[in-house]
């Protein structure tokens, strides 16, 4: 396959970036998208040019490191996967592919396609945990039965990989899906209910401080989420927050 790539290049956080065009051949349809970028980078290095910086790590769709807005969609045109799981067979010979970093005020660009997503960490730090110590001297795990349905729902909320696709896809760059997934996980479990009010208030407060946009309920986040995190979580957070605010 031969492809034309239009890639955002930006030297560092302060520099002004621009789109650059690269041509690449010898792309196999069995390659993953990131392997295609590896090939591009190796050729750039051999030509004495600077390779394109992009975030990636586990390359199996679970660490949430890879990002990229590919042809206008986070993680590209396929559904239910991350960029590292996107394969070139989804593209056609001769295609032009536009590759940009995730864009949000709360995700400043560090270099090329790499963005800083620590705002997500700070939201978690504000209250995304259950305040138990780590002594292990807690009660026996089975002394607290949890309805399977609740445990499963909490699990599905907890499968969020924190990649930021929800923010990237949202026309408002809102972090509601991310924040609500964590709030939901904890709110659904009896262990987490105890400090549910403080948690939701603190996490939303931090989310606002980070400069994310508001939720317009367009549903783009749910569709682009590689893990299919449900909008139900956003509603649950709305509910939890309302409860906590009127208390």
């Amino acid at each position, binding site marked *: 396959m031969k492809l034309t790539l239009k890639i955002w290049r930006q030297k560092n956080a302060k520099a002004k970036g621009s789109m650059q065009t690269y041509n690449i051949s010898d792309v196999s349809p069995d390659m993953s998208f990131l392997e295609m970028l590896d090939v591009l980078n190796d050729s750039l290095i051999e030509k004495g040019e600077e390779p394109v910086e992009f975030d990636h790590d586990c390359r199996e769709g679970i660490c949430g490191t890879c990002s990229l807005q590919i*042809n206008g*969609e986070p993680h590209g045109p396929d559904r239910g996967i991350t960029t590292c799981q996107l394969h070139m067979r989804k593209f056609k010979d001769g295609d032009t592919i536009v590759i*940009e970093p995730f864009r949000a005020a709360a995700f400043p660009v560090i270099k090329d396609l790499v963005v800083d997503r620590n705002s997500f960490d700070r939201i978690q730090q504000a209250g995304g945990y259950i305040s138990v110590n780590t002594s292990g001297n807690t009660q026996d795990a089975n002394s607290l039965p949890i309805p399977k349905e609740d445990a499963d729902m909490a699990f599905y909320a907890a499968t969020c990989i924190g990649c930021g696709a929800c923010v990237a896809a949202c*026309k408002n760059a809102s972090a509601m899906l991310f924040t609500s997934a964590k709030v939901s996980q904890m709110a659904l479990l009896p262990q987490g209910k105890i400090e549910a009010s403080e948690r939701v208030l603190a996490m*939303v*407060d931090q989310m606002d401080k980070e400069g*994310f946009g508001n939720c317009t309920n*367009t549903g*783009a986040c749910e569709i682009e989420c590689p893990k299919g995190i449900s909008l139900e979580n956003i509603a649950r957070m*709305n509910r939890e927050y309302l409860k906590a605010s009127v208390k």
Partner: protein
Amino acid sequence: MAKSALLKSSLAKKYWMAFTGLFLCTFLVGHLLGNLQLLLPVSEAARDQFNEYALFMTTNPAVMILSYVTYISILFHAIDGIVLTVRNRKARPQKYVNFKPSTNTRWASRNMGILGTVILVFIVIHMQMFWAEMKFGSLEAYSTASGAQVKDLYTLTIQSFQDAEYGLIWVIVYVISMIAIAFHLSHGFASGFQSLGVNHPKYNNFIKKFGYAFAILIPLAFAIIPIYIHFGLEKI
């Protein structure tokens, strides 16, 4: 914290948006029921009935409170919408070169602001045409059969849409506005519930379908009125 949270936070702004929006939905129903009287065959009785209804709606204290709440809701809904939009814009200062939201969202959900603006402009025109005319204009008062002193809003309304020169234009303006309202509601109705945290797999489908039905039927019924007056109703 809790108190300021209910005013300042991003979620609170959405609660108010949803709350005022859903309230305005109920207003639409009431307003429509009243307006359906305009579809009655032209007669003295129809004229009296509508004008007495109009008088009641503008003088009854309870209704007046309700209408002030409605005005405030509209204003709040609009201002809150602007505030939210400004913040949303700020959340992505650098735009994408290539952004394809059409692959994952419906058009109406992305253009609530534009639709809302169209609707706001319509509301101003609509109030200027009738409410302001009745309140401050030179509408003549007369005595109905039951002896009430009323202004003849009925004739003004019917004539506006039957006007030889402008009637059709008004009909088109109204129909377009109703389409805007329909799109606005098609997203706004269910979205309001979602913002207020009403989301349950059992009822979601119902809320969505009800929302779509509401978004189609209410504006459609509203739109039928000027169309019927222009094309169907006996000329006065």
